[in-house]
């Protein structure tokens, strides 16, 4: 059974009088422990697709199931979508984000940044600290956990973000151009870290426009004009 099931997803933005069709009927299934990369030129809809998968955005049409839970459902003459707060809970419980710009909170230590999803998940303090420290150790940042993001290098920051994405044991890890702001050496390290997460059994979806990074995945999806252009699984 698929972990993630997208059916006929449409996303239309209304900017003034102009309709922008960012997604135009996307069907994707992703299985547990798959490693998928999404490629495509800018404007192809890959970011919109990521946002919908990540429950940050809602489709205008179509159905979405994640980990056996129906989040958005096509119903007669429309679509039933989850509320803001329901989406917040799903993001918190099921999804780990890794962003291009890290998106760490600047005034907090690495440890507190990693703790944040657990705070919103209502995990008690002692357990929270334990788990946050454990994932920081997993990304080899135990010695930097009391530093704030501006005291860390780019690679270290992204590793904090990876730890934050892992801390809630999400069903799926979404990485949106995770190496976009890193030099090639650091990019390599971060990608090795992500490969490693996959080997440990995590499901990963990665957006990138670099071929050598996309090639690390076991499945590459090419997007074009809001549709899936190619979907290649490696044997």
């Amino acid at each position, binding site marked *: 059974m698929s972990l993630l099931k997208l059916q006929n997803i449409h996303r239309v933005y209304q900017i003034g009088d102009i309709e922008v069709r960012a997604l135009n009927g996307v069907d994707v299934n992703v299985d547990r422990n798959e490693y998928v990369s999404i490629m495509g030129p800018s404007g192809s809809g890959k970011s919109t697709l990521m946002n919908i998968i990540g429950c*940050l955005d809602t489709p205008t049409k179509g159905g979405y199931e994640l980990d056996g839970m129906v989040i958005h459902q096509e119903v007669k003459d429309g679509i039933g979508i989850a509320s*803001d707060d329901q989406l917040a809970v799903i*993001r918190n419980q099921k999804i780990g984000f890794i962003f291009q710009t890290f*998106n760490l*909170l600047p005034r907090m230590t690495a440890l507190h940044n990693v703790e944040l999803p657990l*705070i919103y998940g209502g*995990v008690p303090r002692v357990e929270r600290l334990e788990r946050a420290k454990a994932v920081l150790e997993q990304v080899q940042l135990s010695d930097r956990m009391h530093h704030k993001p501006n005291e860390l290098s780019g690679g270290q920051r992204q590793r904090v973000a990876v730890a934050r994405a892992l801390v809630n044991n999400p069903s799926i890890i979404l990485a949106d151009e995770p190496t976009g702001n890193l030099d090639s050496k650091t990019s390599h390290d971060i990608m090795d870290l992500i490969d490693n997460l996959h080997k440990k059994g995590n499901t990963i979806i990665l957006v990138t426009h670099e071929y050598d990074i996309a090639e690390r995945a076991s499945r590459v999806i090419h997007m074009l004009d809001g549709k899936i252009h190619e979907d290649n699984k490696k044997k």
Partner: protein
Amino acid sequence: MFNQLYESIVIGFKAVFQNKGRALLTMLGIIIGILSVSLMGTAINGIDNVFNQTLGMFGDDVLYVQQFPWFMGNANWWEFRNRPQIREEYSKKIAERASSISYASLETNRRVTLSYKENNSEGVDLSGRGWQSAYIDAAKIECGRYFTQLEDQSASRVILIGSEVNKILFPNIEDPCGLSIKVNGLKFRVIGVFAEQGKIFGMFSIDNMAVMPFQTLKSVFGRSQWLSVSLKIREGVDKEYALEEVRAITRGLRGLRPLDKDNFAINQQEAMEDELGKIKTSIAAVGIGISALSLLVGGIGIMNIMFVSVKERTKEIGIRKALGAKRWVILIQFLFEAIIIAMIGGMIGLGLTSLLVGVVNKFFVASMSLGLVFTALGVSIGVGILSGIIPASQASKLDPIEAMRFE
């Protein structure tokens, strides 16, 4: 739930302390508002205290028949000035005729200088009173005694002094009774000292006084044209009834016809209370006006700074929402920031008030109460909630994608 609430409060505190200067400026309106509201409260408290401590000396069962009313308002002063004088025989006649009156006493006042050896007490309010005033006057005697009927009738040279006079004339003497002092050069024997009564609005001391028998004063200084008759209402008699009876008798003494207006005044402590009530009301009106205005301005200031804070932290809000913060969590975070600013402003206002009260108390009675502290804090929390709710709810509704893109 509690974790998240706690986290929100901590973030609120941090947000305020990261921008101390800005927060302090924002608090200014609240500080002034709370300052004026609590100063008003202390002033009213103070007036109440004055009343209870000092005006009680008039006794609430005493009527004063006088030429002038205590509070004239806007009435024509000349109309009162031209009234016939109160005459000595009124006291006796009212006491005889009024069944509601148990004692009646004459009283007259003048300013004198008292001296003992080289000590002088100037501007002392000396009153000559009938012996009956021992049963009318509510002032307590600390040591010594009141004068007797015989001392009054025989115009004995005896005198009772107020505590202020006592301090000036006898700084080192425990009990001055029996010593002789001079009143305008004439010798009098001190027979008693009144207990301290305090100051009215701190401006004049009612302890800077002395009392001697009416007949003594008359024999020494001659007839006074300003007389007052003090009347003690008999126990258990209705005050209104006594007032009407005295009024009717006095009208009779004056020979007034039914349609003539009263040409005398019957004063009582209630008039003083009414007048103080008016002062209190106007202080409250001004105080509430000023504080409402500055709280409004302060509230708008907080709202403004909260909009700025939400704008500045848009990206942070986006990240928090992406990581699973629900709307209420974000709402509470910003609401607490506003409440904290307002509350600290309120506390500073209260602190300044208590400082000011300490200084002011030297000139004017004022006192702070616990109720006032809670009211002031309650008001500032209210202002915080009112001015924080709109920016906070705006923050809670931000779209996470848009917000995270914000730089």
